């Protein structure tokens, strides 16, 4: 007899404990963050206020911007413990400083580990998706430390990572790639017929 945790609805992850970068600012506190190395940030006024949101029908827990507080995870090889379960996809809201790709390492209860690709396009304005992502949030303006640039806006992408192994997933390790920033992550449960195995 096999025992496993059956998730029937998407699991929104709370990344607050891993947030290590401030990528969202308000117009009155432009220099409180630095999404990229030049100090640019996303405009809080054009993003969700935080909490539960839905993008393309997928629920996420979006970070609540707070003055100067970290709101995204700049990837540095962090290990994220997950609610054990059978999943098909890991959906992410993310953006990169120049497009890049890397492996996330998926850990399963049986001890197996699989690398899977996490591919994220550039957040920079007027730059399209190169990995087939959808634009979760396309802003109309970009924050600089001392001014607001209203002629162009950055993008947060919705991307997904496959969970190919039909076993219980328990953890994932993010890549050590500081160009990738993750704002939110949701685990999509396995769909039938695999869920019924």
């Amino acid at each position, binding site marked *: 007899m096999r025992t496993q945790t059956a998730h029937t609805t998407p699991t929104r992850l709370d990344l607050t404990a891993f947030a290590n970068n401030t990528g969202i600012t308000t117009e009155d506190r432009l220099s409180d963050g630095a999404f990229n*190395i030049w100090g640019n940030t996303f405009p809080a006024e054009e993003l969700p206020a935080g909490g539960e949101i839905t993008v393309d029908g997928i629920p996420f827990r979006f970070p609540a911007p707070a003055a100067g507080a970290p709101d995204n995870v700049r990837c540095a090889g962090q290990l994220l413990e997950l609610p054990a379960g059978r999943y098909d996809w890991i959906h992410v809201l993310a953006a990169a400083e*120049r497009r890049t790709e890397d492996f996330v390492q998926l850990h399963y209860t049986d001890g197996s580990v699989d690398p899977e690709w996490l591919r994220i396009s550039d957040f920079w304005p007027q730059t399209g998706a190169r990995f087939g992502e959808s634009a979760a949030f396309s802003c109309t303006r970009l924050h600089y430390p001392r001014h607001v640039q209203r002629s162009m806006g950055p993008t947060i992408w919705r991307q997904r990572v496959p969970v190919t192994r039909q076993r219980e997933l328990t953890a994932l390790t993010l890549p050590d*790639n500081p160009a990738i920033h993750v704002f939110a992550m949701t685990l999509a449960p396995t769909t039938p017929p695999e869920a019924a195995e």
Partner: protein
Amino acid sequence: MTTLIDDVRGWRHDLAGCLHACMATLLEHRGVAPLETLGAAWRFRHLPGDIRREEYFYPRAPGESLLGALAPYHPVRSVWHSPADAAEGWAQVRAEVGAGRPVAVAVDNFELPFRPAYRDVHSNHMVIVHGFDEDAGTVHVLDAIPPHFHGDITLRQLTASRDSGNAAVHDRDMFFTDVHIGNRWLSVELDANPEDFPAFDRPHIRDVVERNLRGYHEPAQGDGYAGLDGLTAFFADMGKRLAAGETVRDELFVVAGAALANTAVHADWLALAGRALDHPGLTEQGRAVERIAHHWSAIRIMAALTQSEGLGAARFTRRAHILLKDLEQVLAGLAHEGAEL
């Protein structure tokens, strides 16, 4: 007098910068296919001491032009023109544009109203000039780097940007400041008619793949780092210096930026070649080269973080090692596909 050169189009690659953009525009205007020309050569080269504080930096050997370094397999080169002062600088550009030849000019973003850095951050950038209206006192400028701009600014503004001292003022003036812009401008020279350029066909593509492989595998000539061995040595040197507490940010960032652009544009060249020859294996190798570019994206940001966030030698060295291993695989894959052509 009013002059506007038609058929001057913007070109941009998301992992390259203003140098590729400007050279592509000028080549295309002369009837030369940009990607086929700029994307052919793929190599690693770094000459210590040759780090120039300009967004349009690209490593080049002594006597080699910027465009010649970008496109060494084609009969193209660029010429820097260094006028004595702003008046001569405009007179030269005016004459060139008046003769129907658009040019690339070095500018300081701080002085350009369409740049986000306007009145904020100094940076040594490059844009295209292809028209002017002396009655209105304006010049027609093309900048394909976001925010895309194609329109008029005043000659006074252009002159200020070309004659700027580009001073480093605060901590956001990183990498591309503190060197006088000097009113310099760049022309593109073709040493053959476009119809006599290498055809984008199987023999040429095979030749390009072979030359690139030789460049990575042959011992470096002269000073500096070149090829696979040179890149290995460069990364080892960066790691050692980082571990010793030396500042490597600027050198590593600028070298990574040039390598990123070269690698990413070549990846697109391979994809184009694979489609042109209906050779899927070549397109797949293009995707593998793109993966190397994505390593460079990470290395470039790591370089910046060595200073601002104390990113250490261990993290950098680990990433560099993975890049090298992947690069070896890509070179082996290209050798296989090249032999199939």
